[in-house]
């Protein structure tokens, strides 16, 4: 049981970091800080949906990750 929670906490931590990176990536992509749109050859029509998807994925990943981290700490 302890091992399961520990693994859950590690998965949660990794997921929360991925969520943060995804949100950060969305912001960088939208603001064109380092011209990522050209690097990924992203058409401008797809930009809003990509940024939206990345932000939502990031937010839910952060929340899900925090749930698992909290459970690991409770143990």
């Amino acid at each position: 049981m302890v091992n399961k929670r520990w693994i859950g906490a590690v998965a949660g931590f990794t997921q929360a970091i991925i969520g943060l990176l995804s949100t950060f990536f969305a912001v960088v992509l939208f603001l064109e800080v380092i011209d990522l749109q050209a690097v990924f050859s992203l058409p401008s029509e797809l930009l809003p949906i990509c940024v939206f998807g990345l932000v939502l994925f990031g937010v839910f990943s952060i929340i899900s990750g925090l749930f698992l981290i909290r459970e690991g700490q409770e143990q």
Partner: protein
Amino acid sequence: MGDEKKYGLVSAIIMGLGGAIGFEIFALLNYAYFDLAGPSMISALFFCGIINLITMLSYSELSAAIPEVGGEYTYTKVAFGGFISFMAGSIRWLASVFGGALAAVVFVNQLGVLFSVFSPTFQDLVLANASILIVGVVVILVILAIRGVEEATTFIVGAFLAIFLIFLAMSMSYTLNPQNVVPEASGEGLAVFFAATAYLFPMFVGMRALVAGAPQLKDPGKNVPRALMVTTILLTVVYFLVAYVAVGVVPADTPRTATDPPLLNMAAATIMGPIGAVLFALAGIFASISSVGTAMTVQSSLLGGMSRDGYLPKILVKAHKRFGTRYVAIIASSLCVLVFGTSGAVEFLGYAASFGSLLVFALVNLSLIKLRRTRPRMERPFKAPLYPLTPLIGIVMSVLLLGFPIILRDVNAESALLSSIGMVAIVSVMYYLRMVKREIDFNRLRTAVGGICFGAGLLLVLLSFVVMPPSVQIIAVAVGLISMVAGIFNIFASSHKID
């Protein structure tokens, strides 16, 4: 409290004009004219005034019946409470953040226009360092907001009206004959007309400042509705005339470059010469600085109110020891203003501010209908005429205006709408995380989040094999698998507790 100074009708009108007349006219006319509707933008402005007037009737009734600080947030709290009021407060806050960011961008643009009169080299320098300047102006205004510096609303309103009057008077020597002012009666013609209306909408919504200031007025039941009506009519007339002259002087097919000044500055320079260019640039600079400051005050007040009601962490209501201002809320809001402001995307910010305001307008109209039905005996010093037609028209128009830019596939509007939906989703999750106290509800939420993560992870893994290049495929599969594992952990841990 009883000795507090109360203001009359004229002050109320100045308050409304002070909130509405601002930097938006410098920023928004440009895109609406050159890229959306052309000369029919003038009719769009007039239409904005009518829609605004309809919803202001609802505002008038609610502000007279509930003369408390908080505006939309308070009305929805009285009518619906809970989630809807939290949503109204959050959307209003977001609209204010987008508006503040837009004001910061306009500040830099107008600074560039001012320098272009004296030295084009300085203009290039200003535009090249726009982000640094935006950070600078926001930081200075944060310090001023924390110190509680008052704004010179009356002075700004007076200066603006004087400048516009001189502009209109000098335009009389020109033969103005703008073509196609009325929108084309075709599907596309009407779509661009409504899209321009949605985009120009933030030029009017600032008059809500009058509603927020209702508790400071004598006899708010009479003065607020009267002032709202007078302000809307005055504003529509002034904007209509100024836009008419600008469109008459600058043809829609004028060749343009990225460094060209906005429509209004071009028209001022044509009619009034270099003095006009300087006057309008200065007006734009002062208006945008004032608007960033006002936005910060509104944002800190909204966050403080929601924090006081338990929707947000208590730290946001914390006041500065020396100046008594909510410095944590001001700093938190200004960080968001900075992030969006440094994007420099005027069109995106214009739409985002407009969409937030339109959603809030729809919620205010819904609150009016709900209160009329649930509290028919509530004291109402002013009643919106033609009920339920007026609030229903307000709701329908808000929804239509939200839809038309999307139908046109305007990429700025799509980005703004999706960002707004994303942020609404984030604040909804925040609300449930904060307000759901019972363990069983918390675990249901956890199951839902786990399910979303599992589904998103699975989708990512499948998509990685279909649309992604091999270099990105490995990363996408790893991310997808972690998301699926975490989702499964959340689902099993929480469903076990629900059972």
